[in-house]
């Protein structure tokens, strides 16, 4: 600040603001609006410098060092690799998994949760069917056996609009929701049942 003062024009070019005792620039008067001769606040200058340094470093990291977090494809590849390393593989899970109808309340409750969230979008919450078939009657298009149903939910029937849930639901979740259909939904009376599709079993 002291060095700045040395460069300043003579005192007679200034007037003083009575409230703050700061210098007003003499001929700066616009419809009565005056301007003070204050310097830029020091913290403000430093804020500006820091953001400029940040920016230079940022661009160097991209252009010179091709840092992983700034190269989009690299960042994505790393995220996918890390996820693959953390996720248990299917073979390990398969050892513990058995395709047997579940009848305990906890599994059926979990199955209902999946049903309401995902399956109901096409088969409706009460199972009456809309875009997908009615799941409360005893007509089946692809068979009524557990392994047949597990295959449908796993691989889908894409030409009919049933998508595969292999990548969205674990084997356990798939089994739970089939169990929910077989134990809880079968034989109930939905509000607006879709007409039967497939063959009676």
């Amino acid at each position, binding site marked *: 600040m002291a060095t700045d003062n040395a460069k300043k024009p003579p005192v007679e070019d200034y007037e003083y*603001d009575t409230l703050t005792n700061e210098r007003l620039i003499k001929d700066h008067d616009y*419809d009565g609006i005056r301007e003070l001769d204050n*310097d830029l606040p020091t913290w403000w200058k430093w804020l500006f410098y820091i953001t400029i340094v940040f*920016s230079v470093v940022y661009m160097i990291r991209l252009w010179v060092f091709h840092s992983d977090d*700034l190269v*989009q494809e690299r960042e994505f590849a790393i*995220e996918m690799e890390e996820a693959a390393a953390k996720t248990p593989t299917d073979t390990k899970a398969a050892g513990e998994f058995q395709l047997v109808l579940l009848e305990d309340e906890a599994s059926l409750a979990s199955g209902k949760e999946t049903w309401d969230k995902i399956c109901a979008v096409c088969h*409706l919450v009460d199972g009456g069917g809309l875009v997908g078939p009615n799941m409360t009657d005893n007509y089946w298009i692809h068979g009524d056996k557990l392994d047949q149903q597990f295959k449908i939910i796993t691989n889908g029937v894409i030409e009919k609009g049933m998508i*595969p849930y292999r990548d969205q639901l674990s084997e356990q979740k798939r089994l739970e929701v089939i169990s929910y259909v077989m134990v809880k939904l079968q034989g109930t009376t939905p509000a607006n049942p879709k007409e039967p599709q497939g063959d009676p079993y």
Partner: protein
Amino acid sequence: MELEKFTYDNKLSKMFLFATILWGIVAMLVGLTIAFELIFPNMSDGISWLSFGRLRPLHTNGAIFAFVGNGIFLAVYYSTPRLLKTPMFSKALGCIHFWGWQLIIVLAAISFPLGFTQSKEYAELIWPIDVLVVIIWVVFGLNMMMTIVKRRTKHIYVAIWFYIATWVTVAVLYIVNNLQLPTSFLHSYPVYAGIQDALVQWWYGHNAVAFFLTTPILGMMYYFIPKAANRPVYSYKLSIIHFWALIFLYIWAGPHHLLYSSLPDWVQALGVVFSIMLIAPSWGGMINGLLTLRGAWDKVREDPVLKMFVVGVTAYGMATFEGPMLALKSVNALSHFTDWTIAHVHIGTLGWNSMLNFGMIYWLVPRLFKTKLWSVKMANTHFWIATLGMLFFAVPLYFAGFTQALMWKQFTEEGYLSYPNFLETVTQILPMYYLRAFGGTLYITGAILFVINIWKTASAGKFTRYEEDQAPAKPAPKAGEGWHRKLEGRPLQLTVVALVVILIGGLVEIIPMYLVKTNVPTIANVQPLTPLELEGRDIYIREGCYTCHSQMIRPFRSEVERYGEYTKSGEGVYDHPFLYGSKRTGPDLAREGVKTLPNYKPDSWHYSHMIDPQKLNAESIMPPYPWLAERDLDVSNLESKIDVLERLGVPYNDYLKGQDPIAHLNDQATKIAAGLRSGGIEVQDNKEIIAMIAYLQRLGTDLYNGNTQAQLNSK
């Protein structure tokens, strides 16, 4: 020194003042309506012109161009003559400007609900109205610049610098972003496509915020705060530095709207760093506003005008800090596409823009009508209700945005998405939508008090149309002025310098995107849409589907698992305009048609869902679109559309190989309709919904055509 006498005419100020108030209330009411529509999706009751997608552009354009726009013109028409000691150049130009602008607003208010839109945000107006906007903007500029030329003061004040920068930059932005080829009197396609269109659009969109919602409001601040507080401006030096830094840096920051898109890394990085460098110049404006009040803080306690200015300028400081933070990739990875953005922009509009407008009008009306404000107490009440309303609006949406982003990204230990059904993440944040609507209601309640108070004040006083003033003739240039002081005495030079300064950033970012081929790598499989899909896409645009559904999958594990392979720039080369969207109120649709992906739905599902979404998902907040199944598809403009797209580089001649587009369209429609009928749905071939389904089922499929997910992964 001999004084010259002259007269200010307040008539246009008064007209812009009432227009500001009228459109402010309208824009807020439309906003409140769509806030309620998000809670009660059937509120629009199957009436097409009341649906969310059609009203959202009306709200945004209304708030920006009608409410804030008229407020800006009020500030310019009132302050410019007084700062330059001369009346406005031309009353005739002023009248054309006023009525032309109101006509544009009325045309917007009619055309948006009817579905006439370009779909580019804040640039939705169709081309004939765009032409009108440019003409009226030139009239405004001419009137303002000629007033500056004919001034009596030697130098021009910082408020005028900001007005000038506003005028030149908005002209450049508006024209470049709206380059389009008409297919009919009411429809056109933009000349840009895909990621290039997105870059131009967000260069425009971001700088509409900068040069329509910021620089002119800073000009307003520099006049009305010192006037209302009767205090000198804190620092002339700061004015200079933050003015030039702001207008130079702002223009570069547009790409931060496209972080993690298919925009090349170097453009994204420029968007990030220029946003960060904007913090200090923005805060320069804030401190010059707030520190001008030193010595007047006792007045702030009593005076509602100053209170509004203080909260407005503080909100500006908050929003301009938050903006750069949202431009950091790690924050943006969470915030983008969520309600966080909505909260952020409303701190800007409800806080900064509206509070400055309110404060200015509370200060002006007693002066224009030579009386006292009818009720200071009521104005203070307005201030508190507005501040509370803003907080009730924004805080729940911050919470909603953060919550939903975390839910989208969460995985179970087995490696599956924790919330595979998008709707679950919507249901979770719905209570926040109720609170937002409550905040909006509070804010409007305050605005109604404002209207009453202004009305009563105006009725109590008598409008003073003419005001006498006097000033010496323009003095001769003084020797020994600094370079900037010289520039302040040469406004035309200042205008040219400002123009050059604002052109640099845009040119550096946009031109290489066209000239350097590696910036948009081509994909062999990508083909033009079929004629039916093209018509479907135009319906998607008409209904404003893009206001709630994005079509851009970002390169994150959570998005690729949920939606499929992330979006590539080469996929959009025929997309005039791009439809990336900016908000996911519903799920992304970029790969809706890919049969092997989790989001795939059969035609019959789409049909039932568009007719009655709640039948399929009781908790869905999507509005119904029954008219799509009732209206016949209008193909009368199809050939013209295909001709225009061919001229823009979409190879329709190669693709259709001489087939009649209408016959092609009918063939495809017949197949889809027959499929629906076989599933028990009664529908005719020629309904709009068939085109819409065709378009949705095409989305994202080209990349997967002949490629399995594994092959895509290895590429």
